[in-house]
Structures are given as C-alpha cells and as structure tokens.
C-alpha cells in the first residue's frame, strides 16, 4: 500500500466511522417509527408526506439531541486531529516503521491542538468582524434596490470567504510543519504565516485546486446517489456515496502532500 493510499484510507476512516456512529441515532429513531411499515423507504416518496411526518414526530427528540450538537462538533474536530496527524506521518518523506509513524503522529497532537484552537478562534473573530461590517453598512443602503444592496454586500461575503480560506491554508501548512519538522505550535504558526506572506497566491491556488475537485466529487456523489432510495438501489447509492467520500479524502491527502513540498521548497527559514 502506497503512503498516499494509506493517508487516503486514514482520512476516509477518520470521517466515515464517526459519521456512521452518529448516523445510527436517526436510523434507530426512524426504524422505531417506520419499522412496522416495512422500513424507511417511504421517506423518499414523492410529495414528502412521510418525511415531514417523521420530522414532526421526532422534532422534540431532535431538539433535545440538538443541545449536544455544538459539543459534538467540537469533539469531532478535536478527534479529527488524530487521522490528520497519521495521514501526515504516512506522507512524510523518509523510511519509518508503523510504530515510528504512530509515535510521530501522537507526539504532534498537542501542537496540532494548539494550532486548531488558534485558527478556530481566528475564524470566529473574522466572521464576527465581517458581520459587524455588513451590519454597519446597512443603514446607508436604504435607498438602493434589493439586488444592488446584495451587490454591495457581496465583497464582504467574498472577504469573509477569503479570510476563512487563508486560515484553512494556514492551518494545513502549520499542521504539516508540526509533523514534518517537529515544530512547536507557535513556531509552526509563524512558519505558516511566513509562507503565506511570501507565497500567498501559489499556496492558496494549490489548496483551491484540490478543494474544488473535492467539492465537485461531493456534488457528483450527492446527485448520483440521490437517484436510488431502496432495495438494491440503496446499496448502489451507498457505494456511490462512500466512493465519493473516499475521493474527497484522496483530494485532501493530495493537498497535504502538496503542503509538504510547499514547505520544503518555499521556506528558507
């Protein structure tokens, strides 16, 4: 198995297994409602009557479970550090035994957690600033038509998107510096910032290429998989969806590999 295949498999399992566990909750609830009706295939009937009935009947349960969602998402992000570290360890150049790779990944976790905390906080601040800026503009736009108002807000949306993208790229470059060079969190952040400062277009461009490919795979998997709902078709839909998730994992592994070459070729720190 090549390092790329191992990294892809690790990233895929890192999202697919938690997703499967989480999916069991609605699957059991829905099974309880529609099991006597022969299963949940009726949820995808034209008109959506049983689907909305499910939503209506399960709304109180969903609201109760919903209170745990922010914490679950946070836990998911933190737990996701392990597959990321493992994938980077697989992709790192040089010969290492599986034990050495695992050790490298585990040793990187505290610094990766620090990087994650800083970049998540930075994302929240960036979004809040953009929202406040947009709200501040609103009173001055009263005389404009709705589409023009939207057009005025568009640069702010693009700015927010750009800031989030830069932080995403920074996080990945920093994570690679942590695993590949053994840097501590603060030093790795400075490395990432230095690279972004010196080579913003090539770094973001490389990320965008793989991210767009991943987005395209996701849309294609959704569109193709939405055609089948029950029986043998359900198996086919599952296959398409999971192949799609593997494809996205592959694009992410390719990007992580690319961060290593960016780090090697563009940083003379």
């Amino acid at each position, binding site marked *: 198995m090549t390092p790329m295949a191992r990294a892809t498999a690790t990233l895929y399992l890192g999202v697919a297994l938690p*997703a499967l566990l989480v999916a069991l909750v*609605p699957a059991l609830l*829905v*099974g309880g409602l529609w099991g006597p009706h022969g*299963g949940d295939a009726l949820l995808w009937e034209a008109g959506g009557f*049983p689907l909305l009935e499910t939503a209506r009947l399960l709304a109180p349960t969903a609201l109760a479970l919903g209170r745990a969602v922010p914490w679950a998402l946070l836990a998911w992000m933190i737990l996701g550090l392990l597959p990321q570290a493992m994938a980077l360890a697989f992709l790192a150049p040089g010969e290492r035994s599986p034990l050495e790779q695992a050790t490298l990944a585990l040793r990187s976790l505290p610094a990766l957690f620090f990087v994650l905390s800083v970049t998540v906080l930075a994302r929240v601040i960036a979004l809040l600033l953009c929202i406040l800026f947009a709200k501040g503009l609103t009173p001055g736009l009263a005389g404009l038509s709705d589409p023009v108002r939207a057009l005025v807000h568009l640069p702010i949306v693009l700015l927010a998107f750009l800031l989030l993208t830069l932080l995403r790229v920074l996080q990945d470059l920093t994570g690679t510096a942590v695993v590949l060079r053994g840097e501590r969190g603060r030093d790795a952040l400075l490395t990432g910032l230095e690279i972004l400062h010196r080579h913003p277009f090539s770094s973001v461009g490389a990320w965008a290429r793989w991210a767009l490919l991943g987005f395209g795979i996701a849309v294609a998997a959704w569109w193709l998989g939405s055609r089948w709902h029950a029986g043998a078709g*359900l198996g086919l839909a599952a296959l398409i969806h999971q192949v799609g998730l593997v494809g996205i994992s592959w694009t*992410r592994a390719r990007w992580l590999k690319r961060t290593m070459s960016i780090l090697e070729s563009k940083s003379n720190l």
Partner: protein
Amino acid sequence: MRSPSEPVSLAQDVLPALAAHSPNDPEDRTDLRLPLPKPCAPGDTLIFQVAFTSTLPTIVERTGYLGSFHMVGQWFPKPARLRQDGTWSHFPFLRLSEFDADFGSYDVTLEVPPGFLVGATGRQVEDREEGGWRRVRYLQEEVHDFAWTAWDHFQERQASIEGVQVRLLYPEGHEPSVTRQLDGLRVALRCMTRRLGSYPYPTLTVVQPPSGAEEAGGMEYPTLITTGGPWYGPPMLRTSEAVTIHEFGHQYFYGMVASDEHRHPFLDEGLNTLVEGLCLREGYGHGSLLAVPGLSVDFLAGARWIGLGAGHDHAIAHSAASFPTADHYSRLVYFRAAILLATVRNTFGEALFDEALSNYVRTQRFLHPEPPDLLATFARVEPAMAAALEEGLLRRGWIDMTVVALQPTWTVIARRGTIRLPTEVCLHFADGSQRIEHWNGEADWIRFDIEGPPELLSVKVDPERKILLDEDWSNNARSLQPAALGFGTLERAAFWGGLLGHLLAP
C-alpha cells in the same frame, strides 16, 4: 306617494350622533354607530355624503406607507353589512381579523404627485395631469372593497392571462420574482377557472411591496392582491408562487364568495388554502413546496405539519377574535381546515368533493354564505361527507387510525377520535400476498380474522395515507417482523455526516 327608489333627503349633519360601538371595548374608534334622525323604511334609499381624512400609519396591518411607497387599504368609512337575519355585521379593526362588507360599485378618483405609478381595484378609465397632480380614476362594479397603491419607484409589467389583463407593480430588481408570480398566476387562473368557475373581472393588479414594507404583502382586495418573497426567489422553493396563488384564490373565497371573514375565517382561508395546495400540485407536481434532486415536498405535506401543530383544543369554526394566539389562528383556520378538507376529498373521492365545492362556489357567487350553506351543499352531494366536515369544523373533531393488535390469525384496527371516515386496511401475508379490505369507519374498531394459511405478517390501515388529519401515521401499521433500523436513513446520514466531517476536518 313616493316610489321606493326615490331618495329621502334628510339634508342633515348626522356626525354629532356618531358613537363608539365596539362591544367590550370602549376605547375602540374603528367600529362606530350612527343613529338616523328618523327610521328608514324597507325600500327607502339613503344617500350619505361623507367627508373624511384618513391619516395613514407607517406600514402596519397590511396598510400604510414606507417612504414614498403607499399601500392603502381599509382607508374609508365602510357601512356595516345587514345580514339576512336582520343583524348587522360589524366589528373593530382587529389584528387577526379580516373583513366583511356589502357588494357595491366603486368610482374612485385619486390624485397623486406626478411620477407616481398607481394601482387600484378595478379598471382605470382616466389618467391625466392637472394642476401639477396626476389624476387617475378607477371603476369597478360588484366588489365589496377598494384598495390602492402608489409609489414613485414602481416598475411595471403587463400580461394577458385567460383573457384577464394582469398588471404587476414591483420594486426594481424583482424581475425574477415577478416572472415566477406570473407563472403562478397562469397556474391559478387555469386551475381555479376549471374548478370554481370563471374569474369575472377584466383586470387584476398584483403588487409586490418593497423591502421594509413586507407587512403590506400577502393580502387580498377585490381585483388587487399583494404578494411577497425575496427578489432572487430560490428556484427550489415555491413560496413566491404559493403566496401569489393563495392571494389570487381569495378572489373566489372572500371576493366573489363573500363570507364573513371576521365571524367565519375558515370559510375563506381554509377553503382557499386547500385550493392553493391543489393548484400548486397541478402546476408543479409533488414538489409543489420544495423540489431538489432526490427530494420533493408537497404543499399539503407542509400544511399537515403546521395544521396538526395546534392539536384539536379549539374548534376551527370560530370567529377571528376568539383565537388565543396568532399561531392558533393560522394553524387551525388555514392549515387544519385545509387538511380536514383534503382528508374528506381523499377518502370520499376527489370527484364527489370537487363537485360539491364547485357547486358551493357557483351557487354562492356574489352572496354572503355562512357555514350551514357550505355544509348543506356538501350534504346534497354526500351526507357522510358533510357530517365529517361538520364534526371537524364545528366540534373539535379529530381522528387517529391505529392498529391495536396483530396476531398470525387476527388483527384489530381502532379509530380513535370523533370523525368517521371510510378507509382501507391492507393485510400482508407470510407468503408475500396481500389483500385490501374496505372499512366504513363507523364503528370504533374492527377485527379481521384470517383463516390461514397463509398467516398474517403485517397490517396497515390507510396504506395510501389519505387521512391527512390522522394524528399519527406511524401507528397505522404493525408487523410481526418489523425492521429495527432505517437503512436508508443510515446510508444518507452517514454520507452527509462524512461530508460534514470533511468540512470540519482540522
């Protein structure tokens, strides 16, 4: 001796006698009583000359202004309607209540600053500038209200649909939304003309209020409706079409069939919401509310969710003022009434129901029907249909079909609740065969005994889910081998969870 049509001249200022007249609300000044100086005998004619000033609020309760935009409804003194039983239909201007008035002929001249576009009830017969003002005159017969709008930023589009001259007035940039409203109107005019009879007026004006004046949207006046929705109109969601179709439907249920919206709001809102759902489905298929790849949601599926939300703790057929909250009012009057009507239509047969509804609209045109008129029309077509409607509308009726027991050789189905409806029971056998049994739903429960083999494996009551009013569809089936897990749900949730995982990946 004078003829009955000869006016009596009082030539008297009656204003000093005007007095507040709202029962239980001495502060109200929207419902006033005007005693006449002398009795008016049957056949007499009264002529009132009324000079009044109407001070418009900023947009509230569908009327008022925002900047230079004006949507002017309920702006002139309106005489109370004398009912058949000799009582007066009068009530204050309440938040939840709409209106009731007599049919009449309107001849209205409006003067607005030049540069303002005007839309109003009826047909425009004059438009000229005079003394620095734009003067427009509108005429309309056989209507019971008159509303108008004026704005110096209106865009205008015109179209002819089924012989009706449609004029759309809207803010700049709302062209995509207006195109969808026009499409909705084509659906509505075709569908309602066929189901309910022709739209008899030559014009229809559709007004889309600007941002900030949304409160003026989603309202009906004779030959003029206001709509709403975002300028970009998300294509997968049919809200723009739904609002337009709903408001146009009021040209029948309120406009021509002029029931008392204050006392019997379900007669216009409930019936209209049903027809809205039927026309949306006719025009846009099963995705009449939402359509994305792999998922379609019917308008009436949404109506069921909302309509069951207020339970049956208050009857549908109440006056607008008697509902405890706006939420109760909308859930019961609009949506519970609509799903009750749809349930009766599904269970007794679409042809029977459509015939009864069509008879009701055609016989009550330009009249002021009451709930007994509706029920009597349905009873003439099918008495059991009228009985189910009466129970559901007037008496907090409800229904929950459920399978209460299942064994290999017998099963028991119960009808919980008070509404009696015919339904089907589908018996599934161990050898894969199935049998449909018809049940008139009169008794509280029914037992089916099976002389097997093959033995029973599962049973479903109302397998096609015709009873939209059913409190809980999940208890409509039992199986001796139920599936424990929703595999389709597991598959999709795992996929979407995986995508989310990639999005959140550190």
